[in-house]
């Protein structure tokens, strides 16, 4: 009785404010679309600019539509013009990034899964402090480790190489991957593990038979997070590599900054899109997992 009364008076209230609501909703959509255009604007400009010739760029405005589907600047950005020295293009650096990302994502995810597993299912005295110890690695400004890292890579003989960057990204990914897996495994009932232990299952058997089969969502979140972070990294890439070993973001920056006689904005924009497209594809395909990683790994910048 009480409930039905409440909901009917609620409906009346909704009725009464119908007209104010209509106005409000138009306003709402107006603002939302206004912001959507602010966010879309640079992407639109990048795409149309990359399809224009330099002549069109000088004639038209940022927003003007390209005369046709002119893919030449894309070809130049990806494969160069085919003359020797000073012809920088993205293809080799794109592969550098792939060679760097795949092992670094794999190792950091694997190590994170293991530490997350131990920290939640094989708890020991002081494990909370160990977690805090690892977690702190999420927050340090990397400037505080750049100098010794550069020296260490030199001593190990892997400075300016993809291997060196794999090591760097694996190590500094561990705090995040540990955080992800620890927070996921903590909600898995420990009784499951206890029962398996009584049945005589060992450390690795429990991981592979019980934990791993239910880990798909967190593995996806972690892999996407690590992939995006490592693909988009510039600080490590530009500090620890140059020339041929550089990853794609470094190469993009060098291309855009290199002062040849004429600035080719169409090639710049095509290059920027090429460097951004892998992470954009992941975002569009797996946005849900991307956001989940973002909000729980949010501690990082």
């Amino acid at each position, binding site marked *: 009785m009480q409930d039905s009364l409440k909901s009917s008076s609620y409906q009346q209230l909704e009725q009464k404010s119908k007209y104010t609501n209509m106005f409000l909703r138009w306003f709402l959509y107006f603002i939302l679309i206004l912001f959507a255009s602010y966010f879309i604007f640079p992407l639109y400009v990048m795409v149309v600019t990359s399809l224009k010739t330099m002549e069109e760029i000088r004639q038209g405005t940022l927003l003007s539509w390209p005369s046709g589907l002119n893919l030449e600047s894309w070809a130049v950005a990806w494969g160069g013009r085919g003359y020797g020295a000073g012809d920088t293009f993205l293809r080799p650096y794109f592969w550098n990034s792939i060679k760097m990302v795949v092992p670094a994502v794999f190792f950091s995810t694997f190590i994170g899964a293991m*530490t997350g597993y131990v920290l939640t299912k094989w708890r020991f005295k002081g494990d909370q402090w160990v977690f805090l110890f*690892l977690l702190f690695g999420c927050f340090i400004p990397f*400037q505080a480790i750049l100098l*010794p890292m550069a020296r260490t890579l030199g001593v190990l003989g892997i400075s300016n190489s993809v291997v060196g960057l794999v090591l760097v990204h694996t190590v500094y990914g561990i705090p995040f991957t540990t955080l992800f897996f620890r927070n996921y495994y903590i909600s898995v009932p420990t009784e499951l593990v206890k029962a398996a232990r009584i049945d005589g299952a060992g450390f690795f058997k429990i991981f592979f038979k019980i934990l791993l089969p239910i880990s798909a969502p967190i593995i996806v979140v972690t892999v996407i997070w690590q992939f995006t972070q490592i693909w988009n990294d510039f*600080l490590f890439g530009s500090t620890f590599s140059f020339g041929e070993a550089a990853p794609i973001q470094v190469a993009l920056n060098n291309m855009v900054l290199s002062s040849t006689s004429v600035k080719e904005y169409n090639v710049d924009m095509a290059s920027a899109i090429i460097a951004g497209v892998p992470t954009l594809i992941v975002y569009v395909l797996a946005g849900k997992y991307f956001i989940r990683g973002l909000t729980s790994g949010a501690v990082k*910048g």
Partner: protein
Amino acid sequence: MFKWLEKNLPKIVMAPAVGLIGWFVYGFVLWTLYISFTNSKILPKYELWGFGQYEKLWASRKWLIAVDNLLIFTALFLIFCVVIGIILAIFLDQKIRAEGLLRTIYLYPMALSFIVTGTAWKWILNPTLGIQKMFRDWGFENFTFDWLVDREMAIYTIVIAGVWQSAGFVMALFLAGLRSVEDEIVKAAKIDGASLFTVYWKILLPMMRPVFFTSFVILVHISIKSYDLIVALTQGGPGISTTMPALYMTQTAFHKSQVGLSAASAMMMFMAVAAVIIPYLYSELRRENAR
């Protein structure tokens, strides 16, 4: 022996991660701290030199500009990201059509690197062919928008690009926060005659205190570390007008070979981050323990 191995297997599995972080994070930070108290130039020297590098740092005009820029950038970046993020989150929370699409649009810049973002905005903001030309071609012949090449204003172009990249993220945080509030609370307030505005202003936003806190920490963290965006957009220029601490640190270390001085600047950044993060971690842990 086997028994011991079996008993300690979990700890053995943990060891590499703990060892790596111990060495590469803690060891390295301590090394940098030590070096900041020496008179190291190109190569590190290990005799202590006191606070000399810190005195040099705070007497350097470039560093003071960097700190000044960081304060300006952080304040504006925080305000715009949070205000835009909250507005978008509240508006999206009104049972909007195509909410999924709009959310995707607001958040996609987060998937891009700051180098890509910087490259795009550099092109848009360049006075000869970018926005300025667009408005002039449209008939606003005196329209001027040349912040990118203006010493006084260039720092604000970094704010524009930074907000563009990160505002959607704050939106996602607040939207998740708003969605976790029980519907009943809002309904009850409406029955009591509260307008939608009052519901948000007096009830929901105050409930979002932890989200404000999280956003604050993350955004300050991003801004202290901001490096890529400046490299791609202005390279610290025109002149040194858009230098920020992270850029100062790498330039001093790798172009000027002033290892001790750059270590001191890195430690200043480290302390700034710690001042924000330690209270945050402390409160997070307390919340977790209270549960």
